[in-house]
């Protein structure tokens, strides 16, 4: 494997994954026979390339993990594009996310986002702050993703005793929940 190739594998993985990822995890994904040092070197060369050219995409370090994000110099342009055509209220987005968690728990953020088709960081934050969901551990896979569950507070809000008292899903023919 050429060095350039390693750099671009890292690029594609970070783009698709979107969440913070560690050197160790990247090492496992790219090639376990390489050393962590080597991966770190290639990652840093990618980071510098983005930074030196003031590119649209940047990689930031958070604790010991790395994440791809947009360049803050271009924030004004991005705000323009993210202006939604159909505006959602926080309550609508919250209800959608909460419903998905309620029926599919335990569930990770990535899984929720794949169902909703949008990033859900903000909504999850709101749900956590209102004690409607909790972080119920982590999955033992790359990124150690947090898994979410609904809380007793959620049941109280709905005035039900157990999750089983949620409207049954079988009623909606098209739905299948694993």
């Amino acid at each position, binding site marked *: 494997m050429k060095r350039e190739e390693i750099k671009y594998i890292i690029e594609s993985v970070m783009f698709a994954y979107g969440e913070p990822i560690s050197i160790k995890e990247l090492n496992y994904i790219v090639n376990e026979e390489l050393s962590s040092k080597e991966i770190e070197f290639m990652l840093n060369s990618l980071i510098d390339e983005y930074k030196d050219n003031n590119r649209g995409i940047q990689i930031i370090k958070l604790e010991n993990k790395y994440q791809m994000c947009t360049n803050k110099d271009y924030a004004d342009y991005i705000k323009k594009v993210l202006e939604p055509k159909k505006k959602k209220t926080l309550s609508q987005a919250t209800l959608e996310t*909460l*419903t998905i968690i309620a029926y599919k728990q335990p569930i990770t953020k990535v899984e929720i986002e794949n169902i*909703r088709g949008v*990033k859900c960081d*903000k909504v999850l934050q709101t749900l956590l702050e209102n004690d409607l969901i909790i972080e119920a551990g982590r999955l033992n896979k790359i990124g150690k993703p947090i898994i979410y569950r609904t809380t007793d507070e959620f049941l109280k809000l709905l*005035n039900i005793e157990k999750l089983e008292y949620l409207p049954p899903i079988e009623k909606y023919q098209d*739905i299948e929940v694993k």
Partner: protein
Amino acid sequence: MKYNIQLQIYEGPLDLLYDLISKHKIDIKDISIIEITKQYLHYLEMLDKMDLEITSEFITMASKLLEIKSKYLLYMQRDEEEDPRLELMEKLEEYKKYKLASQDIRENISYINEVFYRNKEEIIIDDKIDLEEISIEAIKNILPYILKVKSSEEESEKDERLTKIVRGRIISVEEKITYIRDVIKNKEEVKFTNIIENCDKDEIIATFLSILELIKSKEIIVVQDLFFDDILIKKSSE
């Protein structure tokens, strides 16, 4: 004892005609209307024997074929009129094009994504949530909409196949089990003929299967004095 004959299911009358033509290497441009009508009707008869419901579209086409056939016999004697087969031949030609094109498309579909995309950031117009908006009622309302996105895909295809084969209401054994449980809750015993009143054949079969299930789970016992006598269903005393 019925043999399990594999009967091909067609998408519609044109699909069936197209298949007959291709099997028998008939030229669409000079269709043998007599032969094709015979074979078309033969297929409908087989469907009938298999107790598969024939949809109105198939029947409409059958009468159309017979009409073309009789007009054609007249046309053979005179010569000045327009060939009565023309409209059908044109329709089949048109259908053929898309049928063949769809086969190419099927081959070119990539069923597994090799390319990954990013989800968009969600922009929300306000900062507060209104907890009052979260209720069982609200969940019920968005449920079909939300979960459909993901999972309807595999389901709907299965549905389509089923409706094609059964073409009618699907009666589940579970449904019938619940029904029988309800009936014997209030009565000590009930006759089989009573619980299948007004049922069609599929329902009777489902009812019978559900009785077997309930016997297995020891919820009921059945008594039948003579062969072909009515079956008496009793609540199990266990």
